[in-house]
């Protein structure tokens, strides 16, 4: 297998972007990444685009070719493929790009992730997101997507004594980080009291436990490491790519509080990278709901099962903690344009490892991890990056 590096990154602002279309967003993120990398259109061997539900959100499928076209590459006839795995679509697109270079098939690949979620009414957005759950056996009976994570939270609180305040502290921490990120949807801090008093969505989760509905796009340029030096002095290596699946319905899982897809993808990734958990300097994890970050740090092996809430309370995961998590603001504060999220996580870790994360910079960051989940945990994709 050939080594693969990130040589360019690009992000749009995340938020309610009423004046920007689906095409404008992905073209903006893509051109930023391409300019950052120094490659030209003719150098691109393939494109992979992650999007969960462009069909429902903007009524447009067939977006692989559309994105190549919108980016101005139609005359180059670049192979362009859309990748879907619900909220993990972006991370899966990164993995497809990585694999295509590692295999020797391609040298340079542009990966994009996008979701334009505000062109439909809020109820339609909620209904569309619920399609990541089991439509026939969960959603049909009245389960909502926040409801599934709320049931994980209830069980976690029941089994491990995790508190409502500990859940709230995840949101507070991520908003604190997001306040330092000029691309974040919410660039302001919040308090535990505000989270606890927010309107209920699915008990015990309230509005401030949930990631928002967001428009946004992210892009990266991947290159075979042996060719990367031609374009950059600071390539960031992808030293592992792990992926795993599990049952679509939450109720069929081995354990309600454990995302086995995360456990297995992490095992695969740590083995590939030949590292231990203690070698990781920072991580971007999939905090679609506050409970999801607590489960993530447990299932990734950062802390023991059941101790995630305590770890948050003890500030292990804050920007100046021993293992900073979601320095970008995470899905909660940076925003969660579903298909873009997995790619945006790579953007954050790349900037951190290059020392270009501004006020969010983690000192001496050498190895970073991204963790992207689809649905309530049926898909997980993990990447580990290292400064070259």
């Amino acid at each position, binding site marked *: 297998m050939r080594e693969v590096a990130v040589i360019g990154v690009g992000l749009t602002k995340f938020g309610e972007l009423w004046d920007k279309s689906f095409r404008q967003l992905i073209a903006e993120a893509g051109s930023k990444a391409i300019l950052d990398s120094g490659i030209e259109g003719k150098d691109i061997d393939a494109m992979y685009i992650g999007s969960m539900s462009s069909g429902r959100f903007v009524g447009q499928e067939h977006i692989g070719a559309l994105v190549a076209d919108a980016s101005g590459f139609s005359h180059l006839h670049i192979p362009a493929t859309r990748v879907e795995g619900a909220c993990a679509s972006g991370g899966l697109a990164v993995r497809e790009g990585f694999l295509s270079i590692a295999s020797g098939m391609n040298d340079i690949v542009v990966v994009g992730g996008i979701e334009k979620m505000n062109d439909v009414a809020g109820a339609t957005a*909620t209904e569309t997101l619920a399609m990541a759950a089991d439509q026939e056996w969960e959603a049909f009976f*009245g389960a*909502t997507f926040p409801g599934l994570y709320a049931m994980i939270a*209830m069980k976690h609180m029941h089994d491990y004594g995790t508190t409502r305040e500990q859940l709230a502290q995840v949101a507070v921490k991520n908003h604190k980080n997001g306040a330092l990120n000029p691309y974040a949807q919410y660039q302001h801090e919040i308090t535990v009291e505000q989270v606890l008093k927010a309107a209920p969505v699915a008990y015990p989760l309230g509005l401030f436990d949930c990631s928002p509905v967001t428009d946004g796009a992210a892009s990266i340029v991947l290159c075979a490491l042996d060719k990367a030096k031609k374009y950059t002095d600071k390539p960031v290596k992808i030293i592992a790519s792990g992926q795993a699946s599990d049952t679509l319905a939450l*109720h069929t899982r081995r354990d*309600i509080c454990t995302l086995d897809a995360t456990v297995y993808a992490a095992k695969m990734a740590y083995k590939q990278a030949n590292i231990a958990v203690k070698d990781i300097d920072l991580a971007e994890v999939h905090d679609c709901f506050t409970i999801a970050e607590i489960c993530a740090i447990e299932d990734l092996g950062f802390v023991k099962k059941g101790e995630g809430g305590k770890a948050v309370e003890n500030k292990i995961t804050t920007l100046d903690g021993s293992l900073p998590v979601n320095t970008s603001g995470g899905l909660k504060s940076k925003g969660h344009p579903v298909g873009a999220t997995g790619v945006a996580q790579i953007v954050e870790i790349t900037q951190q490892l290059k020392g270009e994360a501004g006020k969010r910079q983690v000192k001496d960051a050498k190895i970073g991890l991204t963790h992207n989940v689809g649905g309530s945990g049926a898909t997980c994709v993990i990447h580990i990056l290292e400064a070259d």
Partner: protein
Amino acid sequence: MKSNVARFWRQIPQRYNLLGNKCGSCERVFFPPREACPYCRRKSIGKMHDLKLNGKGEVVTYSIIHVGPEDFEEQIPYPIAIIKLDEGPHLTAQIVDCDINDVKIGMRVESTFRRIQEDDYVGAIYYGYKFKPVR
């Protein structure tokens, strides 16, 4: 998004009568029924036998839904739960016929046949299971 009615009537045995199935090789019980047992796989082919579940079980975890899909808006707030049936399988369903504050993890419940959704007031009405406390 409305679907053809066939999408719903083909699930009637499961949703009306809690019809699952049992692997003749390892005796595990599944709901909804599976084409093959995920544990025995090829050994289970032709040995998956229908089994009507008795509809009794206990609440594994639950939530109270305050922001619901359009079809459920009139019922808000309502409890939704993961239930472990006595025969083994888990499923997701609403808890009814009790105060929402009385729903608890570990509570004994039994299935009850109810209206779940409908396609407006001239469309199909979809029925299925909800669960109520065992009294």
